């Protein structure tokens, strides 16, 4: 072990994990996420907490193994995992651990740095992350909590991490029945407002896939503008139309609030170019235009209109990212040529 790392907490049940930077015998560095069961025993309902923690740990391990088995190179996979027995003051305790590849940081930090001002890096990151999401989807895994804190930056690529809130038809998990399984701050509208209408009575995994598309678009918006999309929409909504909260917000159906959400969303997209560096606007406007169009497409507020418009029925194939990835690859090349010109 080299040092303890401050963990960016997630919504994983039971905040009982500690992160460490570790080094293997062969000299390869990694990130170790250790989950100490002893930390749960002091909670109000230790049995439930214990159950949640072990289920979550087991679920994450299974999903990660599944990813590794499918050779998903844009997903931060586990190098190792296991259980370690320790004795503290004569009491036997167990620690679960998973060792991940060690990244140099996450998007949250990188975007604030100088690298965040390099459009070529931004487009490359957008492309890599789109490939990552697509890879996950091809393995029938839906992330549900894709946000800048969960997009890690490595020396030569960007990868998606933290599958703690993921869902998959192969791995049943309790949070797949929640309206919003991930971070509600960045969630798409269908995960924020109540809906009991027919339009959303679609397969939950289709919903998760469509949600991932929205989150991907939102992360693209973050990479360009330094702000996620959902908070930008919410700040432009009148209090009456904001997501339900204890004192106010919209307590009717999603369909009824949709025109207002869409109007605020349109404002955010219209203001997409505001405050961007002049160098981007003058030289790379074509690139920004295309990214804006992709965001508009991915973050479409109506889940049924999101994804491929030609597919009228909501199906898994409707929310495929293939076309967007090839568009981004092409854009990356054009940008490279333009920047060298």
């Amino acid at each position, binding site marked *: 072990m080299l040092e303890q790392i*401050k*963990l*960016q*907490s997630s*919504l994983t049940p039971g*905040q009982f994990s500690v992160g460490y930077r570790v080094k293997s015998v062969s000299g390869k560095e990694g990130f170790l996420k250790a989950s100490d069961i002893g930390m749960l025993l002091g909670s109000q309902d230790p049995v439930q907490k214990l159950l949640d923690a072990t289920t979550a740990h087991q679920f994450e391990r299974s999903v990660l193994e599944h990813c590794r088995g499918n050779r998903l190179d844009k997903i931060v996979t586990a190098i190792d995992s296991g259980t370690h027995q320790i004795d503290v003051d004569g009491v036997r305790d167990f620690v679960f651990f998973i060792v991940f590849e060690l990244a140099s940081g996450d998007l*949250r*930090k990188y975007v*604030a740095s100088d690298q965040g001002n390099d459009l070529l890096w931004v487009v490359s990151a957008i492309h890599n992350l789109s490939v990552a999401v697509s890879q996950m989807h091809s393995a029938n895994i839906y992330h549900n909590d894709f946000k800048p804190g969960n997009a890690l930056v490595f020396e030569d690529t960007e990868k998606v991490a933290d599958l703690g809130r993921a869902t998959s038809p192969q791995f049943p998990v309790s949070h797949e029945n929640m*309206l*919003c399984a991930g971070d*509600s*701050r*960045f969630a798409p509208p269908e995960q*924020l*407002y*109540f809906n*009991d209408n027919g339009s959303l009575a679609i397969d939950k995994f289709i919903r998760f896939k469509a949600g991932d598309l929205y989150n991907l678009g939102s992360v693209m918006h973050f990479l360009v*503008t*330094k*702000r*996620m999309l*959902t*908070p*930008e929409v*919410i*700040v*432009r909504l*009148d*209090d*009456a*139309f*904001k*997501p*339900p*909260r*204890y*004192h*106010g*917000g*919209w*307590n*009717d*159906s999603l*369909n*009824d*609030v*949709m*025109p*207002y959400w*869409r*109007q605020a969303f*349109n404002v955010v*997209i*219209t203001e997409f170019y*505001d*405050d961007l560096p002049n160098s981007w606007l003058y030289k790379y406007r074509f690139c920004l235009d295309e990214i804006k169009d992709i965001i508009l497409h991915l973050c479409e507020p*109506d889940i049924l*209109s999101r994804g491929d418009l030609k597919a009228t029925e909501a199906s898994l194939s409707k929310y495929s990212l293939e076309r967007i990835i090839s568009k981004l690859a092409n854009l990356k090349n054009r940008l490279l040529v333009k920047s060298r010109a």
Partner: protein
Amino acid sequence: MHEDAREERNVLPRWRPLVAVERNDLSSVGRFEKSAFKVESNQFADDIAIWKNEGGIAAASDIFDTFLVTGDRSLLRHAISLLRPHKSVIPARLKDSIIAAFRSDPDRLEIRKSIARRETDESYLRQSIRIIKKRLLNYPRDALSYLELARLYTVIGSYEKSHKNLIRALALAPDSRAILRANLQFHNIVGSLEDGLRMLRRSESLRFDPWLQSAEIATTSLMGMSSNVAKRNLVAFDRKGEIPRSSTELAMAMATLELSAGMAERKVFQLVRKALPNSTENGFAQAIWLSDNRSSRDFLMRFPEFRPSGEAFEAKVDISVKENNFEDAAIFAQFWVEDQPFSAEAIVKYLNLRSVHTSPNESSVKCAKRALSVHGDDWHVLNACVLALVEAGEFDAARRGIQRLIKEAPEGAAQAFVAAASGFLAFAEGDFIAGRLYYEQAQKIAIEFKAQNLLINATMFWLRCEAVNGLVSVDCVETMRSSIEKALGRLKHDDKDYLKSVWHSVERIVSMKSDKYQNSSGDELLTSFSSKLEQAILI
């Protein structure tokens, strides 16, 4: 000669720019308040602790985003305290969002007044249409922009285009309250309420939304149909036993329906009383109309403790007219017209107040000219326009108005208005002989159709024309005054109070002009008519 256009009234929804609508009127009715998933700040307790510890812009941004989704303002303070050391490097967009979070809800009434004033200018309206059309090219699924486009087209009288855009808006958001209510008002304007009602009844939201239920009851009442939803127990009450704003229009619609169905006044007005404290301005105006026109006591006597709110222009017009305060009434009527520029009722009231009770001004002339083109098929509006334009000396426009009035006025008693309007213009242009002939004709029509109110009305205006031009003697004026007052005393008609207020204004003008009487050429005809007037009223 002029008339009070409102025989029936109900709480048909208003149609305003969305940005100027009170947010309470658009907010949810709380159908899923108990079952909706609410994001709470304690769900983020661990994260918040980490962010606070971490500090910096990224952490502040995370806390700020948590505030946005939870509404917990203490988080906003935390975010700002974390940002304070980095003041100079806060990303512009984050800074803008934080400033926006502090912005309080704007004064919707002020916004409404400001938009309404600008929209009296047609070039502004056309420019707004262009902007919205351009926006729709980029965002073709924006139902609310289609709605706004439809409203602007309605203001300029392009009803076909307006209808097309409303259909698009409805296709995109079929259950939206704002769109369904506006659609109903549109169909009221173009005279096809049954179509609007059909669309409203198709909406799922009609089952639970009091704003739509009130619209359905109001529409069916006006159309003489039976409502699908009218039930008194739909009206919600708050803990204080008052009716919340969302249900006030429903309560007023129910009260109107119950009163016309013969329910006891006491019971009906109990409901009205509970609705008045939180009532919308439309509901307030309905309460006044209901009390003044359909019950034994007028509003001011029945509810002396209630005064209309600042936005209730229509209600204020009615109260000011009742108090004979015509100058204030005209000002409120102008606000009403600006607020509801497509409302024929508002236009008729405003123009009549300006031309009969006060004096025309630039705004009333502008309003009359625009109404001529936008409401060219509504003879009530045309009549009011002619009166206002003649009074303002705009004879060419008035002549055009009369041509259209001749075309649009239906056969029967309404022809008396055409004759009287022609007489009014002839007198103003100095053709007194033609003027007298027209007024005689108006009186004959009124007698033929036993329209006593029209007879008195025509006589008052004839006297006014003669007096203004100095064509009658003081004796004749006295004779006519006594005949008209007698006739008014004996009149049994809903318009009695209204005609009295008109006479009040006509008499004032006649008295003012009494020193200018030069000849008495009008005496003979007028005096001969006074006996006819009394006989006609007695019959």
